[in-house]
């Protein structure tokens, strides 16, 4: 069972390998898209490396809920609706959506996810000792 530190280190390695950034850049508060320069093609790569590093399965949309963000039920005029926000909160307990909720522009969602969010996501899927 990994410790929280070990989880962070493995995620750090996965992001360094996938995004070509330096280890020092991968801080807990760094955002994947804004700070680390992740693009859509990178998300597939990142998900695969996480699955391999932690021996877990990450079904499509579990980490990056693109199905909600492209559903007209949940998005109107480029903004996520209340229903959509509630879906997002349910699907992403590892992320903090408070700031995003104040002005939920879909385009901005990409910049929400931080390295710390990813750590919490993985901790939710494996048993962690501290």
């Amino acid at each position, binding site marked *: 069972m990994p410790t929280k530190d070990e989880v962070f280190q493995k995620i750090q390695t996965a992001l360094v*390998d*996938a995004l*070509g950034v330096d280890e020092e850049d991968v801080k807990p508060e760094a955002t994947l898209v804004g700070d680390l320069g992740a693009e859509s*093609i*990178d998300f*597939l*790569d990142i998900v*695969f490396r996480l699955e391999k590093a932690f021996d877990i399965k990450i079904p*499509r949309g579990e980490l990056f809920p693109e199905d909600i963000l492209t559903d007209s039920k949940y998005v109107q005029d480029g903004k996520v609706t209340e229903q959509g926000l509630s879906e997002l909160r349910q699907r992403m307990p590892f992320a903090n959506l408070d700031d995003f909720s104040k002005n939920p522009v879909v385009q901005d969602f990409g910049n929400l996810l931080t390295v710390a969010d990813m750590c919490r996501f993985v901790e939710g899927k494996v048993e962690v000792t501290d």
Partner: protein
Amino acid sequence: MRWYWIDRFLEFESGRRAKAIKNVSLAEEHLHDNFPYYPIMPASLVIEGLAQTGGLLICEHGQFREKVVLAKVPKVTFYSEAVPGDTLIYTTTVEYIKDEGAMVTATSHKGDVLHAEAEIVFAHLNDPRLGSLFEPETFLRMMRLLGAFEVGHAADGGPLRPPARLLEAVNGTGA
């Protein structure tokens, strides 16, 4: 100029691994510009050859249904130059194939010596507006020219054959 950066398949294990040969020759036009009297095969074209080896492997796994494009090269390292007279052996191994894309690890060898290694990520473009990137005939011709069906094995270990849908598209729906 025909955009073939591999000459022939040595191995083609459907969905798993492929090995191809690239002979570097003074008869290649671009080598006389790169560089005059100092011909070196450009690293980008080695990567392209590795991508073709791996890309056809990915395509064949999906029966040439998906539009497979080279999307990202997360890592690549070259240990020496490739020059005229060299025979490069490219080996690509599938790491994963998913709906949205695929990744291979690839190596280039000169004999037993490692020349280069890379990770190559492909994307599957699923926008129906794009239609097909290649005619089925082009795939069939490419695979035949490269000897894929002479050395290849299907997933069950039997001989690799052209997918039925490609043959139908080329020959018209038969009986």
